[in-house]
């Protein structure tokens, strides 16, 4: 799991990129703003993951699967 709370773009995408280096089957990323939610989703989808998003208070949990 990766928590990107407190980071702003493009940092969360870079953190996600690093975390997905070994291409895990499933991975969870927590984001705390819309730009990070959208950008991490775009990145994950661009490299072949399916993303499901769940809102939890002021944060979102993105579940990445491939």
């Amino acid at each position, binding site marked *: 799991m990766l928590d990107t709370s407190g980071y*702003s*773009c*493009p940092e969360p*995408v*870079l953190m996600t990129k690093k975390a997905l280096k070994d291409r895990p089957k499933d991975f969870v990323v927590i984001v705390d*703003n*819309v*730009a990070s939610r*959208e*950008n*991490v*989703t*775009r*990145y994950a989808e*661009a490299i072949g993951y399916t993303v499901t998003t769940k809102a939890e208070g002021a944060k979102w949990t993105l579940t990445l699967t491939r």
Partner: protein
Amino acid sequence: MVRLTKTVKSSGCAAKLPVGDLESVLSSIPLMEDDRLIVGFETSDDALAWDMGDGRVMVQSVDFFPPVTDEAYDFGQIAAANALSDLYAMGAQPAVAMNVMCFPSCMELSVMKEILLGAQDKVREAGAVIAGGHTIADSTIKYGLSVTGFTTKDRLWRNSTAREGDVLVLTKRLGVGIINTAIKADMASDEAAVKALESMKTLNKRAYECAQDLAIHAATDVTGFSLLGHLDEMARSAGLCAHVDTAAVPVFDEALELARFGLIPEGAYNNRAYMEGRVTVAEGLPRELVDVLYDPQSSGPLLLAMDEEAASTFISRFGAPAAIIGRFSKAEDSHIVLR
């Protein structure tokens, strides 16, 4: 060597306050009026216009932002091109400018010198002069200019006077905000970085000159609020609906690819949230293309409204990448329709 963009959180026009926040404050402050102020606050135009009483109009604006590129000299050029663009967008010839600088007291002074030299060269290219300015110590660099130019009453271009049936002409490619975000992430190609830099350094002077003797019905420049944000202001203030042919919009191919990988500045999402409910998007448009239309531009293009004949004259003079990207129709439920 200091990489200027590494010293700041957001860069260029992406550093603008969200437009909704700004409007909520400005709408609560009484408008100042004067008979000689012929363009003021109310239409969110690019600059103020002051009637000189002898047929001439003085046009004035100020614009400054954090570094949008790593080289100080380039940043100075871009900041100047960006500030001067507000005058060109009003149909005015730049005359005088003043520096506005925030600079860290611990940073090498050679950086400040390079910024000022870059700006000076760009202002000279515009046929104007810099005479003075103001500098304060701050934690991060911000630089720009207050600019003043002149036009005549019958040649003043407003953003609010487009007519039904006008076509829309855009004069530079879009996507520099996305490419700048990718540069910060070290994910942009050198080629993309060079293209974005060249575009941002380019004055809107030639676009202004090519349009001088044409009947321009309305004009603005595309900066922090993105193509769709500035187009919304044009459509809303004229009581029209803008139909955009997205396939015709000149964009950097690299920006589309980088947007697909999520290298989009936060400002683009602020722009999108602000426009919620006012833009209709045709089904099946690529997401990354729509993303680029919300991308904040630093030193972006002019967006001109005119009749079709004037547009074809303009494009034959100006050349690529100028293109007709859409057309104004009667007001509809949304201000902008993307197809």
